[in-house]
């Protein structure tokens, strides 16, 4: 009997809940369940509308951009929203990898999403969640207007699956224009031979980054390796075929060790300084260091943390080490993939790769485009960054980001250990070999 009463009450309680939701005005938004047919959310007469009229539709987008990046992205999609009548629902989360892994495994997906990296892109694509873009994009146009290496990096099994939004070019040697003439030495030995005065030391190195501490060091090793041993060794090392104890890898670590020897503040400074504050010593008086090696995004931190203005700083691309591999460059960027078959989502993706859209973010600053038709940038530094990636003869993605998760984490912490005690290099590399043997086998 009591059970009967309980069950009669339950629907009433649910109804109250439903009323509450509806009263808050949020229950009206369409259910995100992937099973729901897309036409359930649109009004009648959809079939009569022109192909780019998506009035009343919503396209969900999740990315890692926050703060001013988020503002720039929203400014970028605004003309599309105005034209089509659709609305872009953006959510920014820095835990993008964890979020998307959960979303893919449970089948509750956003329409479009930023992807943490090429590894995850391949994984989501093999799970059947990511849609190939060959039929969505005008491929001829896309190939013609995109940096070639990036088209390939955005492909899974030869099919374009991810497009590039915000590139970061690595291997820039930044300097304060008040302290250095700007001459780019012909080779790496030339850089190491530069007289650091008026600064105290030649380089600033800052490895702290919370749980990811050490990653700026991995960029150093990658930039050295690709210029010293070439892209073939780099590729086989990233793929787990070249061991860490290989002489080429060891030499790259040792070359970075030479940098640490002439870096500002010693081991304690290197390991305890946040990467974002790593360039601050360029702008102090007297300056702590002459050069700082970091990716193109660092200009934002010079301004927000170092108190510098546009024009106070400039960079040259890290010069060759072995002349055989001149023009090699590493970098990264934010991939965007499509999880939905909705026409509005497909249309948004087409819009996002266009020069028209990318130019909007480029104009707002802090953006290097993979689209070669984006030609004007607000600052000389951004212009030079774009030129660097368009001119590169060999371009490789950030190696650590392509490695399996455990390998990448071990690589990060190995850099901290190496900065702590360079004499321990053989042991550190042997430990990395042990991780490598397991990490790639488990993949």
């Amino acid at each position, binding site marked *: 009997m009591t059970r009967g009463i309980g069950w009669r009450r339950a629907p009433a309680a649910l109804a109250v*809940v*439903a009323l*509450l*939701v509806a009263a*808050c005005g*949020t*229950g009206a*938004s369409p*259910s*995100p*369940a*992937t*099973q*729901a047919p897309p036409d359930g959310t649109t009004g009648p007469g959809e079939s009569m509308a022109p192909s780019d009229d998506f009035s009343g539709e919503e396209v*969900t*987008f*999740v*990315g*890692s*951009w*926050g*703060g*001013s*990046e*988020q*503002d720039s992205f929203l400014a970028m999609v605004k003309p599309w929203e105005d034209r089509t009548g659709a609305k872009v*629902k*953006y*959510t*920014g*989360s*820095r*835990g993008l990898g964890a*979020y998307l892994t*959960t*979303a893919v*495994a*449970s*089948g*509750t*997906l*956003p329409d479009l*999403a930023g992807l943490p990296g090429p590894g995850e892109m391949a994984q989501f694509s093999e799970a059947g969640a990511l849609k190939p873009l060959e039929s969505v994009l005008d491929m001829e146009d896309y190939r013609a207007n995109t940096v070639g290496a990036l088209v390939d990096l955005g492909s899974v099994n030869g099919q374009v699956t991810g497009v590039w939004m915000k590139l970061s070019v690595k291997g820039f040697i930044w300097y304060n224009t008040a302290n250095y003439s700007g001459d780019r030495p012909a080779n790496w030995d030339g850089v190491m031979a530069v007289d650091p005065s008026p600064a105290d030391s030649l380089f600033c190195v800052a490895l702290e*980054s*919370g749980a990811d501490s050490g990653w700026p060091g991995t960029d150093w090793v990658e930039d050295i390796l690709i210029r010293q041993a070439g892209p073939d060794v780099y590729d086989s090392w990233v793929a787990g075929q070249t061991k860490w104890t290989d002489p080429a890898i060891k030499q790259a670590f040792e070359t970075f060790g030479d940098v640490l020897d002439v870096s500002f503040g010693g081991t304690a400074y290197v390991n305890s300084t946040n990467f*974002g*504050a790593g360039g*601050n010593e360029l702008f102090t008086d007297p300056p702590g260091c002459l050069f700082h090696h970091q990716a193109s*995004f660092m200009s*934002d*931190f010079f301004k*927000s*943390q*170092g*108190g510098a203005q546009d024009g106070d700083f400039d960079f040259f691309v890290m010069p060759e080490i072995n002349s055989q591999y001149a023009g090699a460059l590493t970098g990264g960027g*934010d991939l965007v993939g499509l999880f939905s078959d909705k026409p509005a989502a497909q249309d948004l993706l087409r819009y996002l790769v266009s020069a028209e859209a990318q130019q909007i973010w480029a104009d707002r600053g802090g953006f290097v485009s993979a689209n070669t038709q984006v030609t004007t940038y607000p600052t000389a530094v951004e212009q030079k960054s774009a030129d660097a990636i368009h001119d590169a003869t060999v371009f490789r993605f950030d190696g650590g980001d392509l490695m399996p998760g455990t390998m990448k984490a071990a690589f990060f912490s190995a850099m901290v250990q190496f900065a702590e005690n360079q004499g321990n290099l053989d042991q550190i590399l042997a430990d990395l070999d042990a991780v490598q043997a397991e990490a790639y086998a488990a993949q």
Partner: protein
Amino acid sequence: MTVVTKPLETTRATAVEKGGRGWSRIVLHAVVIGLMLLWLVPTLGLFVNSFRPAADVARSGWWNALFPPWDFTLDNYSRVIAANNLGDSFINSLLITIPATVIPVMVAAFAAYAFAWMNFPFRNAIFVAIVGLLVIPLQSTLIPVLRLLAGAGIAGEFLAVWLAHTGYGLPFAVYLLRNYMGGLPREVFESAAIDGASPTTAFFRLALPMSVPVLASLTIFQFLFVWNDLLVSLIYIGPTNPDNLPMTVRVASLVSSLGGETHFLTAAAFLTMILPLVVFLFLQRYFVRGITGGAVKG
């Protein structure tokens, strides 16, 4: 603590000189105030930094702002309030937190009474199983629960988060309340039964009013847990329905993808802190009154 209480006891034991007693009170207060100040230092630093320009925060410690030349700004606050529909997400946070606090506390109170005072088969086994759920990490349930919620068509709605928080909160809530209710005097319930009270009457008229202090503290715990939660809301409401996202998710997205622009977080932290502080202060008074009330009657 012992250092402080010992002189107190000895003075009380001798209890002759008034001056000695006053002196030890001053020492006690000095120590307590000192500890409080020490405890408040990080919060104070955060508060001061929330009024400083970004470049200053990056270059010098917060204590530098306390000396002239003063350079305070409200920019951080105005930017945080203007950005990301923070007002809407404040309402969302309330809409998530209040039901997600009330539901588990109510359900747990019923369950705790049943476990403490009602006889049914496998009572202890079920209780042990529920307490055992405490060791399951929340993160390991994300994928299956999201699949379940999406199957029911409620992923992205507030209801999904209410149910999720109820589930995550219940094991601890049942455990805490069962132990408290189990400690209530048996005679009270026996005489109620003799007077003809049903278990339902005994629960509402006796068990519930006598458990007010523990209900208040459980409410504080659960409220703070849900208010501060980022992960559960992000996963179950998620970007599929960003209009329903709470404040924590909005605040987290004030930071750029590489961890820049963190100076806004100081201001955002204070804005999110206001309501929990009010709730805590309000319930704390209630909590203390509950304890003393019980003590007098007991």
